[in-house]
């Protein structure tokens, strides 16, 4: 058996189309999922048992079921209740919901890890709950959100492959089309492997750049001077450790 490159030469437009759709779906699901996650995290701060219980049920449910089942429930459930929308939208919604549960947990944990006095001092001076979140709480937690959120986002990108099972023509779906046409599964899936690897590597790298930027800001705030911070940051480390 030989690796048949001509398959890739012939079918590359499908891979490009699939990649582009995967990227758009994941970008949308990250944004929508994060917005829902932040809203849930904020709602969970309201001292109401009913709200807390509702959020808890939402989070537990979404984290307890396999993504493919969630996808099928949304895909077959929406038409059942009279809503007909394209599979790609259905898939993006399911992926957003899936990610939102994990993002919500991350944001909630970060809010609750801050000393309570930070929030109290903002409220006592007259800020509303939302103003306190915006001016006092969120600026402090954003740096700590990056690493765990990156993990969730990478998991979500990989789970987006499942959308192929409801005929969304994303990357995995296209690779199935190619291998169906050519009977060359290894070539098709090897190409897809490389593309997923590239997407996740880019996301992970972008996240580490972001984290480094926040990390520097944070060490500055710990030591109180930009000069001292530059010694703590990667810039000042010996060249060989910088890869």
């Amino acid at each position, binding site marked *: 058996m030989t690796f048949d490159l001509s398959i890739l030469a012939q079918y590359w437009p499908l891979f490009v189309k699939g990649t582009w759709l995967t990227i758009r779906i994941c970008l949308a699901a990250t944004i929508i999922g994060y917005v829902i996650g932040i809203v849930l995290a904020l709602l969970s701060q309201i001292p109401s048992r009913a709200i807390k219980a509702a959020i808890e049920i939402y989070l537990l449910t979404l984290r307890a079921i396999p993504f493919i089942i969630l996808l099928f429930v949304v895909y077959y459930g929406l038409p059942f209740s009279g809503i007909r929308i394209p599979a790609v939208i259905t898939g993006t919604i399911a992926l957003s919901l899936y990610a939102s549960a994990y993002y919500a947990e991350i944001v909630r944990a970060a809010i609750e890890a801050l000393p309570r006095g930070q929030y109290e001092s*903002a409220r006592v001076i007259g800020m509303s709950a939302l103003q306190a979140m915006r001016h006092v709480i969120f600026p402090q937690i954003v740096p700590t959100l990056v690493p765990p959120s990156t993990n969730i986002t990478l998991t979500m990108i990989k789970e987006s492959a499942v959308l192929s099972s409801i005929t969304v023509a994303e990357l995995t779906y296209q690779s199935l089309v190619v291998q169906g046409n050519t009977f060359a599964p290894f070539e098709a899936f090897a190409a897809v492997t490389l593309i997923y690897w590239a997407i996740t590597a880019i996301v992970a790298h972008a996240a580490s750049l972001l984290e480094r930027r926040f990390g520097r800001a944070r060490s500055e705030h710990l030591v109180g001077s930009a000069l001292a911070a530059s010694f703590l940051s990667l810039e000042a480390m010996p060249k060989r450790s910088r890869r």
Partner: protein
Amino acid sequence: MSATALSVSGLTKRFKGSAVLDDVYLDVARGEVVAMIGPSGCGKSTFLRCITLIEQPEAGFISVAGKPFGREVVGGTVHRQPRRAVDAMRPKIGMVFQALNLWPHMTALENVVRPQVVVLKRSRDEATARAQKLLADLDLADRGDRLPHALSGGQKQRVAIARALAMDPEIMLFDEPTSALDPELIGGVLALLKDLAAGGMTMIVVTHEIGFAANVADRVVFMHGGRIAEEGPPGRVLKQPGDPRLQAFLSLIRPAAAEAV
């Protein structure tokens, strides 16, 4: 203008059934300095947390400069005020927490500027001018651009005081202002509180510094078991305590008290 800066009546707070504050009445006149003393767990801190509505009291009325805060009586029935009305009143009560709770991601100056801009809707220029004046008055003119982590304990405390003063409060509350400080800094903070008092600021100071209570306060309030057990001018309350529990409390901290009185 009301002559009463703060009026508290029937304030009651329970945690899990037991009363931490039990029907507390306190009126503080404009310009008056009240020192609140008492053993730990007597309800002093809870009192401050309740009159700022950080904790919601189960019963009681609070008013600041004659205006109801938290609960009000409308047409013969008691109503909780809407959140907006409560938030609008809050700047009138300046609270300096024991832990200070400065916002570590903002410079000292920004800690004082931001709440003025967000809460009082002052322009940034106006708020900055006010903040710089306050920081200068508190000997922090050259510390405005520092983050809280780069300030000493005493400096942080003065920033926290400036942050509250910038809101033009009717009354300032201090929760054990000296307990988190190194001993050599305590004198400075007490002198600053004395200056504020001399400037006519109304204050309630929860403190263990009997010396401060004796020298600066107009009135000493002794709390015990969630109630005000004894109150009066420091000369009488600290020198001739009537309540046996106050006598016991004072004898426990006798060295400090003997020195001061």
